[in-house]
């Protein structure tokens, strides 16, 4: 990966080494995650199937309700419940590979800023979550929303989805790094993740529901909710970024 942009370091033996720039390190780590995923397709398939299964559970759970009236108001919340549970599954897996082969230790041996590891991992988690959402949201639409007519502003729901997923990936990466070293890590991640994600979830459900229902004044509600969700994203990702060094070194 040594490329022309990196600074040259000369060692005692007179050997010239290229020190890759931070961005190159980031790209390498990200590519490693993506390549690993495209070879095994483990996370994407398990998350996709899990999302489908949650939709089927919804089908049973909502079978006794009158679908035409309630479903629009509820769908924002249902969609986000789906995303939260699916991302829990994915985040649990995201560091499992690293742990199995001692890969994490290898990464930590490289002399680089630890926050690069955080950014790379958060980006790969974000990409996987987005891919799953691209599959899951149309499925959700197909199963639940074709019986009714969502408002014309329906397409706006991609904005809260994007903002929410960024936050989920950011704080989720920090928490999954914490829980990978604990006993009973699967449960542990849920115990930490759900209370901490609550404000974001609340804001995103509000924005998504506003987009789907499209009632009068929905733009105001959406704007407030998205501003809050965006604020949460910025603050939490900055905090995670700062704290990540301590977490991964511990």
């Amino acid at each position, binding site marked *: 990966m040594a490329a022309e942009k990196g600074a040259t370091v000369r060692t005692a033996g007179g050997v010239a080494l290229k020190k890759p720039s931070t961005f190159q390190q980031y790209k390498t780590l990200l590519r490693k995650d993506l390549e690993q995923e495209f070879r095994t397709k483990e996370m994407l398939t398990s998350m996709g199937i899990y999302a489908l299964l949650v939709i089927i559970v919804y089908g049973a759970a909502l079978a006794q309700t009158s679908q035409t009236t309630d479903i629009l*108001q509820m769908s924002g919340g249902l969609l986000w419940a789906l995303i939260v549970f699916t991302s829990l599954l994915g985040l649990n897996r995201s560091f499992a590979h690293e742990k199995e082969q001692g890969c994490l230790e290898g990464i930590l041996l490289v002399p680089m800023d630890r926050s690069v590891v955080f950014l790379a991992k958060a980006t790969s988690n974000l990409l996987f979550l987005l891919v799953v959402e691209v599959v899951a949201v149309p499925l959700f639409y197909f199963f639940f929303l074709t019986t009714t007519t969502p408002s014309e502003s329906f397409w706006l729901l991609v904005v809260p989805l994007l903002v929410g997923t960024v936050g989920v990936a950011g*704080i989720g990466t*920090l928490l999954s790094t*914490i*829980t990978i*070293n*604990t*006993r*009973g890590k699967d449960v*542990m991640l849920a*115990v*930490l993740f*759900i*209370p*901490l994600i*609550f*404000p*974001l979830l*609340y*804001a995103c459900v*509000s924005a998504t529901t506003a987009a789907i229902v499209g009632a009068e004044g929905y733009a105001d*509600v959406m704007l*407030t*909710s998205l501003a*809050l969700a965006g*604020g*949460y994203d910025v*603050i*939490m990702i900055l*905090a*995670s970024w700062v*704290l990540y060094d*301590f*977490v991964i070194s*511990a």
Partner: protein
Amino acid sequence: MTGETKKAPKLPEAGQWPDRIAPAVLVAGIVLSTIGFLLAFLWASPVNGAAVNGVEMIGGQMVTNVLLLSQKIFYFHMPVAITSFAALAFAGYYAVRFLMTKNRRFDTCSKIAMEVALLFVACTMITGDLWTRFEWGVWWTWDPRLTTYLILMLIIIAYFILRNAIDEPERRATYGAVLAIIALIDVPICFMVTRLIPSSIHPVVVREGGMSGDMGITLMFCLAGIAMVGFALYRLRFRQVRLTERVEALKEQLED
């Protein structure tokens, strides 16, 4: 204390001056809280409009005796809530100090402040819920304050679950500190979010501000008393944990 000569700085120290005054502070806090309790029922003037939609209750006749009594819980609810916030703030402060210095003492401080915070948050939830049931007629609503406190309580519980799930002391301390800081950041955001986003079911409850002098004095007594109880609990527990650590360290030293 045989090995005091060389390894003394490494021993966890205990028994500074706050430990000596802690029992006295505890007694004083209990006395003040009791005085506040008596004042609240015997002296503080009754309130009209303390209930939700208090505007409609104006005019003393509308307000029944029972309704007035329910407001008395405020004198305990509010000080307990403030103390819980203070304990949480201290937990966050010590967490930052721990990450800066890696001194185990600050980890112990942070953990014990969290314990006190959990106790007071639980008390806040109980006193608040009694009032909610009485005044609003429901056990639970997703009101901003209630929601925030529930989330806060869940995060504090998660903090202790996390600590229990890690064996290495170093790692446990670091993860605990990180979670304490994240929690401290998360809780105000949670309040803002639940407050600012209009929920379709429950309106934001607006409460009347302003207190008369006797109410203020009563509240001061309760606030001082409960804050002192909180401090004394923190300090006594800290002394206990710290002495335990000291004994362990001394034992290890004797074995060497």
